């Protein structure tokens, strides 16, 4: 896949079909990859595709001027399509390089599985369904399926639905929805006051770095409501109350646009379980309006549209 990507990327740049390639390069933190954005052919050699390509790069097209050749996994492609539906990205301005995706490694889970600090790990190889983790003088084998992100278990579209160039052969979806929604189901089983207390505690940690918003491709408001000060909706500094209200409103703003890419939760420096909010809304939007984010670029976005028959039994 990697070689095919390099080949295609070079060609795109050389033929002037794109101004930039947006892909993944090697990171400088153990095993992480990092976005590689370049207009130079000589940088193409640095492109990688491996089980650590966590970032959702579809945040970039709305920001970077010019035509882009962009690398996307299944979930990312749906973010991109959603942006096309919302007229934030023009389909003609991007060349989509699709990665059929078997799942991405959640380094936190990996660390738990091997019971050692990630810094002690020297090398990780994927062999079939296993990851071979080499440490100083020892070796551990973990099941790939045990260390991927929760979102990946429930991923119904691991192969991008929208692409110009597919970099490998299609991957069939895992059907482990239960595993993917486990945290959410467990959360729903506790009573309302406890649920509220949970979020109160979670958002007491929030430092309002806005990473969750800034990495999210669905958060594209030109001026976010938290940055509006006349009237001021919520204070610029954090109290758990305002932090929670901020996130709840953000959750509603991205409902129907969220592809469950998981970037918000992965980025949050204080480990707030944001996916439990976002993914819950994915379920609700599907249940209420039979709508899935980014599976059809010609469909109207769910909240710009309505049906006379939309559910309303809750309205008295």
């Amino acid at each position: 896949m990697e070689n095919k990507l390099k080949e295609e990327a070079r060609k795109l740049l050389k033929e002037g079909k794109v101004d930039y390639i947006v892909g993944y390069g090697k990171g400088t933190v153990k095993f992480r990859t990092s976005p590689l954005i370049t207009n130079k052919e000589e940088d193409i050699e640095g492109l990688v595709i491996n089980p650590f390509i966590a970032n959702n790069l579809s945040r970039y097209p709305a920001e970077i001027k010019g035509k882009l050749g962009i690398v996307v996994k299944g979930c990312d492609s749906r973010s991109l399509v959603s942006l096309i539906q919302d007229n934030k990205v023009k389909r003609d301005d991007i060349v989509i390089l699709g990665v059929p995706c078997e799942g991405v490694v959640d380094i936190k889970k990996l660390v738990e599985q091997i019971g050692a600090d990630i810094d002690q790990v020297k090398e990780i190889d994927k062999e079939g369904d296993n990851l071979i983790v080499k440490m100083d003088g020892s070796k551990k084998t973990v099941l790939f399926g045990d260390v991927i992100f929760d979102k990946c278990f429930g991923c119904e579209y691991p192969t991008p639905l929208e692409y110009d160039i597919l970099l490998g052969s299609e991957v069939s979806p895992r059907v482990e929805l239960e595993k993917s929604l486990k945290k959410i189901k467990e959360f729903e089983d506790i009573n309302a006051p406890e649920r509220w207390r949970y979020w109160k505690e979670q958002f007491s940690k929030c430092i309002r770095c806005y990473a969750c918003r800034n990495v999210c491709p669905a958060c594209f408001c030109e001026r976010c409501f938290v940055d509006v000060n006349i009237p001021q909706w919520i204070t610029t500094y954090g109290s758990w109350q305002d932090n929670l209200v901020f996130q709840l409103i953000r959750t509603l703003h991205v409902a129907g646009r969220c592809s469950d890419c998981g970037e918000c939760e992965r980025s949050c420096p204080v480990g707030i379980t944001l996916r439990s909010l976002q993914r819950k809304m994915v379920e609700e939007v599907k249940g209420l309006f039979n709508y899935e984010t980014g599976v059809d670029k010609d469909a109207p976005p769910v909240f710009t549209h309505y049906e006379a028959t939309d559910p309303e039994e809750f309205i008295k």
Partner: protein
Amino acid sequence: MGYKKIKKDQLNTFLSELSKDYTVVLPSRSGGQVVFAPWDGKNTDFLDWYKNTIIPPKALFFPPVEEMFRFRKGEEGYEIEELMPDKRQQIIFGIRPCDARALKIIDMLFADTYKDPYYLRRRENSLLVGLSCNEPCDTCFCASLDISPGQSEDVDILCTDVSDNLLIEAISEKGSNLLSEMSGLSDAGSEEESKAKEMRKSAKEKIARQINLSGLQEKMRSNFENREYWEKASKKCMACGICTYVCPTCHCFDINDENRKKEGKRVRSWDSCKFPLFTRMPMENPRHEKWRRMRQRYHHKFEYYPMNFGTIACTGCGRCIRECPVNVDVTEIIGGI
């Protein structure tokens, strides 16, 4: 005063003794995060897993959100209620050498012409007990900034983990006074001392990440207008506030009045030069484009701070590298200039 020592499984009694007169704050796991939190009176297992916190110790002195005072409009003008931090003495146990240095660095700012009472009161009421790093992280590059992972002049007391023992060494006078009052410590032998020295040396050698600081300020000045460089460097940045908020030396803040009817409060909170709205309230953010904001952060640390205070405002703790969602790496950016 020579080295003292205590068996690691006795640390409990040592901490209990300290707890009599101080609030002891140490690394603990809370909500899946490693944070400095008041000691629960029992656990000392952090010695086994603790590397460093994500939120730096600056937060203990300069909290993310701080109410400065409350005000009320009374019959005769405003009544002000001061909200100074309480005077209780606290011990920060387990602070890393880089973070202790970071406090020294921001002391210069908070105790400059304007003496910040909130920060300084907390600093005065605190005693730092450092813990040397035997196993630096992959992201650490403190050695390039003249910080030794195993040593520190910036704490009051320094502990070093030497197999079964914790070697304890008084660094400041405050620290030495405290140690002399403590029971339960025994004198360390020369064997342990030399072992500690060895560990310090090896810790320093383990640090692989580096930045080259020679002639840096000069280079930065001449690179300042190099828009192409900064645009490229900032291209992937998401303009969030993580790197500044997890940085032990970033210190920018915002002040807001929050009022409702006839009363309100003045609140100070962390702010970040990475945000487009930074300084927008008093005037305008002159740095509309992301690359300008990126440049600001690095120039502030590596050029302006040295100009103002004679020291670089980075300790090589590596937090910004590790926590950045897109892995923007300060060593690459500074190295590339």
